[in-house]
């Protein structure tokens, strides 16, 4: 065969052959045809074999396989683990949000209301990811949920619903098999497969079924010096990055659409999580002007649907001025989470009227 090339290239190739002194096999067109056939069969065989194995094993427990080797999934990040949790029939109600509602313990809500709650929390999650999680949970319910708790923090006020801070595996949450297959075909799926096999044989622990993760274990109380540093940081105003001074609140619209699809007897609690006082917009800033506008949007949304309540702790209240309740401006301790839990339970039990 002759390929084009410079004389220097041709000479170099010839030189390589001479130096290596490779024995020439008896090469015929048939041997090349066989070579191509082996490649084609090998590549497509490997491709379909791998995809078939991953579809059959279903390492992320998406429910697409007729077989199940073991309930649940191995310990992993919530973005992938929530796929299994979201379709777990043991739960019929959910807490959905980012790390600002991570501290709300679903077991406490379950104990207080008698309704089995799962936490589908995506740390660093923005509305697009959380709405996807909501849709996945709803798509896998035999009956409508009894209650839904949704964490509405500052990011829900943005005018851009497409914003993305961290990678999110939308393909795992897709109801389209083609999207799923395309997404599944990545080397991280192989890691998922390996982890799942380790889990099946008992070498990896199971991811918590109800999704609760107490981040006090990460922050810890720390040494007095660390505590002093933490409090020093809390005293610094945080500022607000995303200020929507317009009139378009697409995330609120998206929630309204989803709430409209729920039966009236499903209780919905929209939680505006606590923020340490220096994390609130400073008076006189555009962020401060935007704050009540966004609050009113969600308040109106709650007014318009029966059985929809707002738990608003994003206010200047004594608890939000106590540095002992916070790790940083937006991450609060269990002490405050317990107050929130009590309020949510009271609402679901009908013991507390909707706040204005």
């Amino acid at each position, binding site marked *: *065969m*002759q*390929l*084009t*090339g*410079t004389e*220097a*290239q041709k000479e*170099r*190739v010839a030189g*390589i*052959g001479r130096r*290596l002194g*490779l024995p*020439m*096999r008896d*090469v015929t*067109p*048939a*041997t*090349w*045809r*066989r*070579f*191509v056939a*082996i*490649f*084609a*069969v*090998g*590549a497509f*065989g*490997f*491709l379909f074999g*791998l995809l078939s194995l991953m579809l059959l094993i279903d390492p992320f427990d998406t429910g697409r396989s007729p077989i199940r080797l073991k309930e649940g999934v191995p310990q992993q990040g919530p973005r992938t683990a929530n796929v299994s949790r979201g379709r777990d029939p043991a739960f019929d109600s959910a807490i959905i949000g980012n790390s600002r509602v991570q501290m709300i313990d679903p077991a406490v809500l379950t104990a207080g209301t008698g309704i089995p709650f799962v936490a589908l929390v995506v740390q660093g999650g923005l509305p697009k990811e959380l709405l996807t999680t909501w849709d996945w949970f709803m798509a896998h319910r035999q009956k409508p949920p009894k209650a839904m708790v949704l964490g509405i923090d500052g990011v829900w006020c943005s005018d851009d619903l497409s914003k993305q801070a961290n990678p999110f595996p939308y393909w795992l949450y897709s109801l389209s098999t083609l999207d799923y297959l*395309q*997404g599944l*075909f*990545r*080397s*991280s*799926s*192989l890691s998922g497969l390996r982890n799942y096999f380790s889990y099946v044989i008992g070498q990896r622990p199971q991811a918590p079924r109800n999704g609760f993760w107490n981040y006090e274990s990460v922050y810890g109380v720390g040494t007095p010096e660390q505590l002093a540093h933490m409090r020093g940081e809390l005293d610094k105003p945080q500022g607000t990055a995303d200020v929507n001074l317009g009139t378009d609140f697409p995330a609120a619209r998206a929630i309204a659409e989803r709430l409209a699809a729920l039966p009236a007897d499903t209780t919905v609690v929209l939680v505006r999580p606590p923020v340490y006082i220096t994390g609130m917009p400073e008076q006189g800033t555009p962020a401060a002007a935007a704050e009540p506008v966004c609050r009113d949007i969600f308040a109106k949304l709650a007014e318009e649907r029966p059985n929809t309540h707002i738990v608003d702790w994003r206010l200047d209240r004594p608890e939000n001025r106590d540095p002992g309740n916070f790790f940083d401006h937006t991450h609060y301790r269990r002490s405050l989470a317990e107050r929130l839990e009590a309020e949510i339970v009271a609402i679901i039990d009908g013991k507390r009227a909707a706040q204005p």
Partner: protein
Amino acid sequence: MLFNSYAFLLVFLPAALALHALVERFQPSWRLPLLLVLSILFYGYWDWRFIPLIILSIVINWAIATLFASTRRESLIVIAITANLFVLALFKYADFFAGLANMLPGVSIPMLSLALPLGISFFTFHHVMYLTDLRAGKTKPFDLVRYGLYIAFFPQVLAGPLVRWSEIMHQFDERPYQRSDAAERFARGIMLLIVGLAKKVLIGDQLAVNVNPVFAAAELGSVTVAQAWQGTLSFTFQIYFDFSGYTDMALGIALMFGVVLPQNFDTPYRALSLQDFWRRWHMTLSRFLRDYLYIALGGNRHGLALQLLALFATMTLGGLWHGAGMTFVAWGVAHGVGLGVCVLWRRAGLSMHPIIGWFLTFLFVVLTWVLFRAESFQGALNIYEGLLGLAPLGSGFKWRAIAWAAVFAMIGPTAWALVHKPQPHPLLAVALAVMFIVLLLKIGDSESYEFIYFQF
């Protein structure tokens, strides 16, 4: 359609190969129309609205070439080339020149903000090469299908290589799968495709992770010495593996359809002089610039001063061709000046030790890539300050990917040399199959970076 996409590798290419094989076997007269239709589909996959543009571009240029053949009116060719360059300028440079003009007091030209049709720089140059040669009597008119295929043949339409009509037209008339070496060509085409994909995915894209944050940071402020060198060296190898990987894939895909495209890279980072570098880097562009611009501007036939001027103008325009921005112009200017210095050095009869020659050439190329990659002069300046040690030292220099890339780029072998030698052993076929699937898995893993040369 990207070569490194599932849509291309798992759907378009297998389907196109199967159709092509069937037609070649049972209805050979349909082969070229089929390839043309496939090429238009491939081109339009990205954005179907560009399909009329490429079809019009082909039909109008073909019609003018046909008319010229019967009338021999040279003005037709001049008008056609001018029109081609005007279309290129409209889409690619209108806003650039408007921006320059708006810097003058009292001038306010509105921006057009036209979407840049993919590959327009490449197919415009194909038209120019053909029309120029037609005018010079070096070629003849071809039928519409052959001409269309010369312009739009999908392995090369988006990012080259820049193919001369004389390199490809005769191949269209062959029965490629009737050749005695057809299966070998096909097999080596597969090898080139996989090696090119590996260069892009395993090396180029990995380096992009080292590059993008550094140049983004440089646009916002200063970067450390470690960051500047990491970003610059990484980009030096990223652009090589990205573009040469694309070319290898293009060559491999074309070979699977029985067409041999010209080489485009020959271990450029082993160059011992700047002239040598341009003989090894984007070789088909270099020879285009030489034959259709440098020589047309006088070349080396009218004295040293004109030669230097022609060289300078050629490289400056070459820089502008790469992108509608002053940083690209500055990159071209730097290479024009560099090549001019090389000419003067040779004319003076001076010599240089090859190792020093290699070092200076490599350093020059590395430093000028900063202008090529930076989005503004301020961004480039911030990188240069880091490179020259005028910034904090920093830490965390990610050297591993750079070191591997340097070894592959400088020691080689080239993909062409690599795939030329292997014998058709079954184990090699299995290994390639596994490699192919591993590469597909890697593509799925990360965001699939577009090929750098797509924007030019």
